[in-house]
C-alpha cells in the first residue's frame, strides 16, 4: 500500500520558473526513500508538496488514499513532518525544551502529554541533557537534531528531510543517519530524504528516486539505480565512491563483478569472494598477467 504519492505534479513559481514538470512518485508505508538530483532539479519543491506547504499547479498528492487538499492543514502537518535544510530557519523558541514543545502545544495537548512527548523526542535524538539549553548555544549538528526532535514530538507518520547531513562532520552524519535509521526500522516511520551525498544512499535507503528538471527520471532500489556511471553523470550525479571503484575493476580490470557492490560491506564481501574464487579459477588457467 502507498502511504503518500505524487501524481503528475507540476509547479511553477511566481517568477515563472517551472520547478516541477509532472513528477510521479509513490512512497510505501514504512520505507526509507532517498531523493537524489542536481542543484535546482526540484527536490525541495517536491518535498514541500508532500506536506502541503506548496500547492500543485496541476496533479495531486495522495496521502492515505485521499488527496491532500481534502485534509485540514493541521491534520496534514500532524501526519507529515518536515525538517528543513538549515536548522536556523527552524528553531523558533529560545530554549531547546520550548522549541520541541512548540508543535505539541499547538496540537492543544495537555501539559503532561506535551512534556512526555518532549522527553521522548529528545531521547530519540539523544539530546535529553540539553533540554534547558539556549538554542543559540548549540552546535550545528546539535541544532539539526533538535529540529528533528521538534518534528518527532508531533508524532508524524511520515518524516521528510531536506539535506539533513550537509555541513555536518562525519561523526555528525553518522549520528543523524543512525537516528533516522532507528526511527525507520524501530518505530516504522516512513522517511523521505533529499540529499546530495550519494555515498549515504545505498547504506540507508530502501529505494532511490532521481530527479531532473522537475520530473522523477528514475526510481528503484539502490542496486538498480547505481549501475551505470555515465547515465548518472549526465544527471550531474555520480556513483558512490565504492561503486566507482568496483565499476573500474569490472570494466577496466575485467574482474567478474556482478551485481555492482554499492556499500563497503557489499564490496568487501564481493572482493573476498573473488579472491577466494581466484583459487579455483586460476588453477584452471587464469589470463591475468603476472
Amino acid at each position: 500500500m502507498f502511504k503518500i504519492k505524487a501524481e503528475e505534479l507540476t509547479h511553477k513559481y511566481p517568477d515563472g520558473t517551472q520547478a516541477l514538470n509532472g513528477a510521479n512518485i509513490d512512497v510505501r508505508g514504512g520505507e526509507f526513500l532517498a531523493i537524489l538530483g542536481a542543484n535546482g532539479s526540484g527536490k525541495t519543491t517536491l518535498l514541500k508538496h508532500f506536506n502541503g506547504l506548496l500547492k500543485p499547479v496541476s496533479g495531486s498528492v495522495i496521502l492515505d488514499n485521499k488527496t491532500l487538499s481534502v485534509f485540514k492543514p493541521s491534520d496534514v502537518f500532524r501526519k507529515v513532518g518536515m525538517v528543513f535544510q538549515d536548522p536556523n530557519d527552524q528553531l523558533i523558541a529560545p530554549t531547546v525544551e520550548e522549541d520541541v514543545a512548540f508543535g505539541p502545544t499547538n496540537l492543544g495537548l495537555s501539559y503532561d502529554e506535551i512534556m512526555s512527548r518532549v522527553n521522548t523526542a529528545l531521547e530519540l535524538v539523544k539530546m535529553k541533557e540539553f533540554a534547558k539549553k539556549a538554542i543559540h548555544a548549540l552546535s550545528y549538528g546539535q541544532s539539526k537534531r533538535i529540529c528533528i526532535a521538534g518534528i518527532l514530538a508531533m508524532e508524524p507518520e511520515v518524516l521528510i528531510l531536506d539535506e539533513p547531513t550537509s555541513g555536518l562532520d562525519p561523526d555528525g552524519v553518522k549520528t543523524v543517519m543512525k537516528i533516522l535509521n532507528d526511527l525507520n526500522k524501530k518505530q516504522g516511520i516512513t522517511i523521505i530524504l533529499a540529499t546530495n551525498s550519494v555515498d549515504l544512499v545505498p547504506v540507508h535507503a530502501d529505494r532511490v528516486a532521481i530527479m531532473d528538471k522537475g520530473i522523477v527520471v528514475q526510481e528503484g532500489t539502490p542496486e538498480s539505480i547505481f549501475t551505470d556511471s555515465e547515465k548518472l553523470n549526465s544527471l550531474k550525479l555520480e556513483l558512490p565512491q565504492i561503486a566507482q571503484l568496483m565499476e573500474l575493476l569490472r570494466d577496466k580490470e575485467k574482474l567478474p563483478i556482478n551485481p555492482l557492490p554499492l556499500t563497503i560491506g557489499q564490496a568487501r564481501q564481493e572482493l573476498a569472494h573473488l579472491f577466494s574464487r581466484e583459487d579455483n579459477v586460476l588453477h584452471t588457467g587464469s589470463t591475468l598477467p603476472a
Partner: protein
Amino acid sequence: MKKILLGISIVIALLLLPHVAYAMHITEGILPPKWVIFWFVLVIPFVVIGTFRLKKKKKVVPGFLPLVGLVGAAVFVFSCFPIPVIGLNGMATAHPAGTGMSAVLLGPFVSVVIAGIALFIQALFLAHGGLTTLGVNIFSMGVLGSFSGYFAFRLAQRMGLKLFWCGFIAGVVSDLCTYMGTSIGLGLLVFEGDESFSVAMMHSAKAMLEIFVVFMATSQGPLCIAEGIVVGFALSYVYKVRPSILYNLRVIKEQ
C-alpha cells in the same frame, strides 16, 4: 433610483476601500504639481539629514552601511507580512508599516532614509505608491511614522514600561500616524486656491477626517493593534534570544 445608485456606489466603495488602505501609499499621478513640489520640499531636509548622519556614522562604525542595508531589507520584508485583521469588511489581511520597527532599531533620521528607499523600490516593483508621490509618502510613512514611533518608544521606556509594551506603543503610534499622514496628503487634494484659506482648510480637514475614519473602520484600525503586538513580540524575542543586538543598537541600555 438615485437611492439605489448611491447604495450601489457605497457598497462598491466599501468593498474597495480595504484594498485601497492595503495599498497605503498614495499612487502615482494623483498629486498635482504644486503638491508634489510642496511635499518634496518638506521631506528633503529630513532625507538630507538622514543621509548625512549615515555618512558620518559609516566613517566611525565601518560595518554600519551593510547593517542599514540589511535592516532596511528586513523591515521591507516585515512590512509585507500578511497580518490577518478583522474590520468592517470581515476577515482580511493587512500589511504593517514597519517604520516603527526601523525607527526603534536605527533612529528616526536613518529610518526616514530607509523608508524612502523602501518606497522607491515598492513604487517600481509593486506599483504601490509612485515617483512623483514619493515626497508625500516619505512624509507620511517616513517622517511621521518614524518620529512618532521613535518618540513613543522612548517615552514608553522613560515611563518604565516593559519592552513588549514599548514596542507595542511604538507600533501602534507609528501606524496611526502613517495613516494620518496619508489622509492629510489625500485630504489636501480638495484644497481650493480660490476659496479663502480658512474655508479651504475646513474643507480639506473634513475630507481628511472622512478618509481617516474610513481607513480606520475598514481594516487599518485593527491593524494598528496587530502591528503593535507584532513589533512588541519581535523586540522581546530579540531580547530573549540575542540581547546583545539591542544593546549594540542602543535600543535598550545594558544593565
